[in-house]
């Protein structure tokens, strides 16, 4: 690779781009290009770190006050899609559990005494899951209720 060709390739490289092997080899072997490339790299790094307006004070406190007053808490950790998937899995499990071998074994072992406690447990599970869903999206539900009330007049 010729020096001029190598430097052109170096100058065309993007910010933080991985340099082609041939170019890296050339830069290793050629002292003149290595010096030029190093100076360019230094200049680019210097410009990126440049304190353009050093007189500027810290306003992070006021920004954070405004952020806290903006009303967005982001306490929610699970997207709606995951909530719905969880709900579908729970409901499908309730229907499918009666066809499983384990259910037959439990029925044989406990007899009809199993039905009521099992459905109580499943009911509690669905209730807790739904309550968590509603609590995590309380603000959204509140807005929807208010909108609905406004529409009703």
């Amino acid at each position, binding site marked *: 690779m010729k020096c001029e060709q190598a430097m052109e390739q170096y100058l065309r490289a*993007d*910010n933080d781009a991985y340099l082609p092997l041939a170019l890296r080899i050339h830069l290793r072997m050629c002292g003149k290009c290595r010096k030029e490339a190093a100076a360019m790299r230094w200049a680019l790094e*210097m410009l990126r770190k440049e304190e353009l307006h050093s007189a500027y004070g810290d306003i992070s406190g006021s920004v954070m006050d405004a952020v806290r007053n903006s009303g967005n808490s982001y306490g929610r950790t699970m997207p709606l899609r995951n909530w719905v998937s969880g709900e579908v899995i729970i409901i499908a499990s309730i229907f499918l559990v009666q066809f499983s071998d384990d259910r037959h074994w439990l029925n044989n072992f406990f007899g009809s005494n199993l039905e009521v406690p099992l459905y109580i447990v499943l009911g509690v599970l669905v209730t807790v899951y739904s309550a968590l869903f509603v609590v995590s999206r309380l603000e959204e539900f509140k807005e929807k209720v208010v909108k609905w009330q406004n529409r009703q007049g």
Partner: protein
Amino acid sequence: MEEYKYVDEYIIKKVQQGNAGLFEQVVKKYQKRIFSMGMMFFRNPDDASDYVQEVFIKTFNNIQTYRGQSKFYYWLIRVAYNHGINMVKGMKRAESLVDTLVVDGDISPEESQLKKDIYSALQHAVDDLPEKYRICIDLYFFYGCPYHEITAMTGFPVNTVKSHVFRAKQLLRDALKGSVAEEYHEM
């Protein structure tokens, strides 16, 4: 900025999960950069300070839309740029940060001269460009944005961005030829 490359994304993930207090670290880290962009748009420290506040509030309010497909820093710069462009619509066009460069007095005479040469080369590159493309130079050289990010932000074709940056780099290279930078900063 390299040393923080994974930390930003980790912080943002935590903020998205509800730890809003961590957002302050992002504000502290990038407020000066965003302020510089504000100065580029408004040329007025008061307006630029308001702009910084608005950009970070907007970023926080939209933080759930950050999917981690690019570095958070570029996403923030994109939010800031779009907000600035929307604010100055109808006003005068944003000027380049190159115009604001001043050589600091606390450095050696060699370094001072070198910086002057670099700034002058960039100034030359910016002066040669049509006004609307000057932002490419700022985003590439001062904000470290790669070509595709600049294209995504500005809507300019990637080859246009590349050619303007290439031209500026050539001028920079000429300015650095035979300078002390070549002696002191060898790889």
